[in-house]
């Protein structure tokens, strides 16, 4: 469904990504791993259309995304949850969801869609009128994820959803992603620094370092006894 061919991202004179090849299949979770500055965010942004792609091509359903601006890609079923827990902080939980839904495909009425969100994350339902900026970290991440899923995407791009969250919440979130992707057949690209946790839920993994892919393979291959050492070496 998604293919990156030799993609490079350049911000002015800085090359954030160099010649990256990547494939993501529907119904599967593809993990993109690497330390800070390795290029994970640039990769997701390039797919979503908000990073300058200087070389190579991003193919979605075998068609190039090059001529498509970001909002069109969103309409085509690509949904990005950006790094740093970016939300509309001045708007309430429900307003954030309403906004996300309003500019999505709108296959079901809002009341049904939002109820599905509250069923999956009851705490959001309890706090539906609270401003998003006031939520705790984990709740914010749930809201971000729900803003993505309420648009019923075919391709979900998640940038470090586990950032700064307690392991138990991260578990919850990863479980949700896995269940959703399996049920809907959505392709998921999950960028994470927390490599081991990500590889547990992913089917495929790519490790980035300095903007290039240095390791990749099926996640069960990557997850072996000495993986932690290998990753340490790659990260540290």
């Amino acid at each position, binding site marked *: 469904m998604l293919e990156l061919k030799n993609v490079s991202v350049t911000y002015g004179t800085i090359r954030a990504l160099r010649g990256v090849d990547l494939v993501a299949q529907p119904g599967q979770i593809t993990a993109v791993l690497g330390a800070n500055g390795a290029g994970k965010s640039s990769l997701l942004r390039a797919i979503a259309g908000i990073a300058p792609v200087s070389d190579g091509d991003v193919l979605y359903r075998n068609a190039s995304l090059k001529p498509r601006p970001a909002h069109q890609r969103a309409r085509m079923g690509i949904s990005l949850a950006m790094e740093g827990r970016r939300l509309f902080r001045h708007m309430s939980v429900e307003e954030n969801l309403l906004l996300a839904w309003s500019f999505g495909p709108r296959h079901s009425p809002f009341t049904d869609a939002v109820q599905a969100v509250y069923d999956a994350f009851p705490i959001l339902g309890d706090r539906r009128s609270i401003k998003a900026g006031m939520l705790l970290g984990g709740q914010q991440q749930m809201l971000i994820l729900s803003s993505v899923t309420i648009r019923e995407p075919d391709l979900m791009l998640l940038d470090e959803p586990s950032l700064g969250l307690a392991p138990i919440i991260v578990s919850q979130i990863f479980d949700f992603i896995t269940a959703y992707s399996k049920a809907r057949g959505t392709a998921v690209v999950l960028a994470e*620094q927390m490599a081991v946790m990500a590889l547990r839920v992913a089917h495929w993994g790519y490790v980035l370092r300095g903007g290039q892919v240095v390791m990749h393979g099926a996640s069960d291959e990557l997850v072996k006894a000495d993986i932690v050492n290998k990753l340490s070496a790659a990260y540290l």
Partner: protein
Amino acid sequence: MNTFRRLMGRVLGQSLLALAIVVALWFGAGLTDRGTVQLLSFLMLNILLAQSINLLTGIAGQISLGHAGFFAVGAYVAGVLTKTHGVAVPLAMVIAIAASALIGWLLAIPAGRVREIYLAMMTTGFGLLCFEIAKEWSVTGGVVGLSGIASPTLRSLQVFGWMVDTVDLFRVMLVATAIVLVLMRNFVQSHHGRSFFAVQASEIAAGSIGIARGQVKRRAYAISGAMAGLAGALYAHLVGYLGPDSFTITRSVEVLVMAIVGGMGTIIGPILGAALFTWLPERLQIFAEYQFMVYGLILMLIFLVMRRGIAGAITEPTRFIAPRAMKRRPDDAGKPVTLQAESNAPQNRPALLEVHDLGRNFAGLVALDGVSLALRPGQITALIGPNGSGKSTLVNVVSGIYDPSRGRIVLGGDDIGGEADHAIARRGLIRTFQDPRLVPCFTVRENILLGGQRHFRSSMLAAALHFPSTLREEIAMVRRAEYVMELAGLGAVADQPIESLPYGYRRLVEVGRAIMADPVVVLLDEPAAGLSEAELGRLAAMIRYLRDAGKAVLLIEHHMDFVNDIVDDVVVLDSGREIYRGHMQGMRANPAVRAAYLGVSQDCHA
């Protein structure tokens, strides 16, 4: 084209040419008709006005849309004092200049605190306010204005008992303008002028090398106000009549247009712009009719078509180092002053920087949660940690950009918690930034020279008058900058503007600037990001130089290979707390570090 520009640069830079022009005008005035002398007088005024806004907006970066206000203050003070109170003309002029300087200084206090849009609106408001006062106040004659001011046209202008006619007045204006231009050029080519540019380029970066932005802005406003006030006072005596319509927003716009079209940020630019816009309304009837529309079109298009104005198009940019300091010398480059090398091993020397239980919150978010550090001379410490662990916050608090929420920071025995960033920099704690903040139009040499800002001692007056002591200081600093450039491997591109060079160079220049400051403690924020192999080598050499010179270095980094080669000690942060301190090898195997970076729980078997 480039050879043409170089030639023009050489020609226009010649002092002899300028002197020749002044002499020619002096004598020419006596030989030509009165109309031309009047026109030339207006030219002098416009040059003064254009340069005054150039200093404030083009050099110090403070946009001014109400410059007519300063013009009005100078004009009316001179006019009222001489006409209504019978004060002698020279004295009145001095008072007028002082008054407009004072108004400028006062305006800088609120204006210096606001950014961009607010500043633009505030200065527009200031200009309008001055206009309204001129229009309503009885002292200034209200709408009717103030007439009968001593002037050559009425044959009433007397200075020290000597009757001044049109030509005499022009000559006075000519000399005054020439003197102001020389002073301005000296000023701009000194460390004071460079500090103005630094504030324009990045107030935060300026603070990080010890430049007090509030003080710079007040100075810029005061000097700019004084220049415009001088123009105003001369104007009062030139025309003998002052009406509020001479000080409308139109005038402010005209002054801005002259400077922008001529070329802001250069010395020659506003002169060219003033010449163009003094000549055009006189000679082109069409221009006079459509003046407003033309100004409007010019302002709309200038940034798309000729970003640097006429001066930018036809000549080389002004350089900001005293020319005489740039001449080649046969002796070798000077070495920066270093701290005494201590004899004990690094661990035993007293710490240069101590941080005790430092905490910092941002609206409920705990960014730093009790971090303690000690940085010793001749030691390089790495500070690492995953995203959001508090590394940058630590540097920002220690360098004075944020106040600590709790804890103490001790530099060389003094508690510096809560001090302003520029004060801390002046004490010798220098930092760099994640994205290099340099002055884009400065060359490599000029940017590095900025680092020495805190060591310059010359006063503004000494700089403007080009005292020998100022020159000596400049020469010494330039030599030191050359040494730093050699260290950074930048000798070949020393005189290229930094904006034309690739990213890696900017990094190296920023670190070079920090070295130039001869710091006691250096905090480097991710200096290795985006550098090539060769550049990393240079960076490592520079950091080692700092260590060997006895400085304490804190290095925030993600680039582990780079860190591995040069640091002695590693501190790892996570969620605002220290989770490991020790050697690199130990860090890799440490379970807490692995958990923080990789998400492996303590008892997990992958």
